[in-house]
């Protein structure tokens, strides 16, 4: 075997990732230090931390950051509770459950952009099915995404519809890998089903939960497609999450430097979350 073979096999990947991942990162950091506006070509000048300082006094930015956190916390909590519930329910062998498990996964392979459009059809005030179902129970039509108070929860519901299956699948895999003997011993001791879940299953499941929640949080920080196609950030700016705002700044106003600063801000939040979760994971597995 040639001595350099192991290195030679790794090198192409390292070079490609350095050029498509790390070069853009450095490029982004660099442009975030400039006032670079493509709409007015002659305004490229160095502003140092100027873009970052502007973020703190930018009401749109602060609001979209809060909105992103609400989105993230709301969706992740709902998906965790629903996903855990469904995983516990489906963790038994019964007729037809194999097929059910596959069918439940379908929302998460639906193209997110298409998911946004489908829900746009369902939420429609006059012809949408949601209002039709409500009318069967005697409720009047709701404007859903057209209402400034309801729009954000409606957008979150699409996320919950699409990504609860992922939480379910990861938690089910976690449940199925738990040591059977421990659960059986608890059963013999005469613990009730709830006690068994609370004191045996749940603590053993914590590492899986931490990993699953981390993945959902990372994805929620990237959310764009479904929101863009369902509401485009409206009505008003009520559903404008950080990525929609970055898109508006960068590709509607063409303020690339400022958009770069927002992108780096999102990167910093991502890194903080990852660090916290890795810390939590270490503690839960000790």
């Amino acid at each position, binding site marked *: *075997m040639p001595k350099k*073979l*192991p290195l030679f*096999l*790794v090198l*192409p*990947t390292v070079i490609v*990732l350095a050029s*498509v*991942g*790390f070069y*853009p990162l450095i*490029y982004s950091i660099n*442009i975030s230090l400039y006032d670079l506006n493509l709409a007015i070509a002659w305004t490229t000048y160095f502003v140092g931390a100027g873009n970052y300082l502007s973020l703190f006094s930018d009401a749109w930015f602060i609001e979209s950051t809060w909105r992103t956190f609400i989105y993230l916390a709301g969706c992740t909590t709902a998906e965790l509770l629903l996903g855990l519930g*469904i995983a516990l*329910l*489906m963790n038994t062998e*019964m007729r037809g*459950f194999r097929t*059910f498990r596959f*069918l*439940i*996964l*379908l929302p998460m*392979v*639906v*193209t*997110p*952009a*298409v*998911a946004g*459009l*489908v829900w*746009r*059809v*369902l939420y429609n005030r006059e012809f949408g*099915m949601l209002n039709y179902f409500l009318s069967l129970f005697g409720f009047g039509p709701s404007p859903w995404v057209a209402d400034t108070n309801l729009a954000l929860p409606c957008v979150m519901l699409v996320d919950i519809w699409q*990504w609860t*299956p992922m939480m379910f*699948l*990861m938690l089910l*895999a976690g449940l199925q890998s738990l040591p059977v003997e421990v659960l059986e011993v608890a059963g013999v001791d005469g613990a009730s089903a709830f006690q068994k879940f609370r004191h045996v299953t749940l603590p053993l499941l914590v590492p899986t939960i931490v990993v699953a929640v981390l*993945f959902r949080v*990372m*994805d929620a920080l*990237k959310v*764009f*497609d479904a929101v*863009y*196609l369902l509401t485009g950030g409206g009505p008003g700016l009520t559903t404008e999450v950080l*990525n929609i705002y*970055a*898109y508006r700044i960068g*590709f509607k106003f063409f303020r*690339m430097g400022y958009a770069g600063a*927002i*992108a*780096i801000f*999102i990167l910093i939040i*991502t890194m903080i979350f990852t660090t916290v979760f890795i810390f939590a994971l270490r503690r839960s597995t000790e």
Partner: protein
Amino acid sequence: MFTMKKAIKIALMYIVVAVILFATLFPIYWMVETSLKEPVETFRIPPKWIFTPTLENYYQVLFVSIPFTRYLLNSVFTATVSTLLALLLGIPCAYSLARFRVGGPHLPSWILSTRFLPPFVVVIPFFLMFRDLGLLDTRFALILPYLTIQLPFVVWFMRAFIKELPADVEEAAMIDGCSRVEALRRIVLPLMKPAIAASAVFCVIFSWNEFLYALILTGMDAKTLPVATLSFITERGIMWGELTAAGTMTVLPVIVFAFIVQKHMVRGLTYGMLKG
């Protein structure tokens, strides 16, 4: 009494499962159903549950209103080329990491870290560079940005798989006089086939569903199917029939793919593949 209680419990379980399935599948069902209705029927409330299906909307999408075939080919081209590149680069790397532990414990996490870059950190530089190079709105525009997600995935997915393959198999072959390269080609590669197929399918699903990079880096010529669905939201309103027909045609191949990789779904998710 005991069996009665048990029967009620089982019945309750099935009812809950039915409710969950309804909530899960109704939006998909409704998309397909709307796409098969005459435009007049689309807006009928209460809806007609039983109707004569028509392919009119599909005909409009495929041959009349947008150059659908071109966008379909764009999607197929991007998915194929980016997936092949990811496999070609990623599998040798995964093998080397699994067997020789090149770069110690840090190299694998370094490789994984690019897939956690926020989308705008990647897309703004590519937009500016491709603008200067005249590559915006070409079929090549999406391949490099997609590799930031696909390549780390292939490396991690395949590395985990190769680690589970006993190293003795190759070593035995090598003692029998095969060179390592020959042992790889004749023994390891055939064993890896199912895992390679699964990781390829995950890469294709990612590329097929991706929207943000395609929205920014492509335009009239090179746009992929998810971006093409925007054409049906017009000044005069939303063309619901055509929109849902295009949506159905976009989603259908992915559902078939998902069925194929069902078994590998958990590992695929652990490396976060379904969503960019």
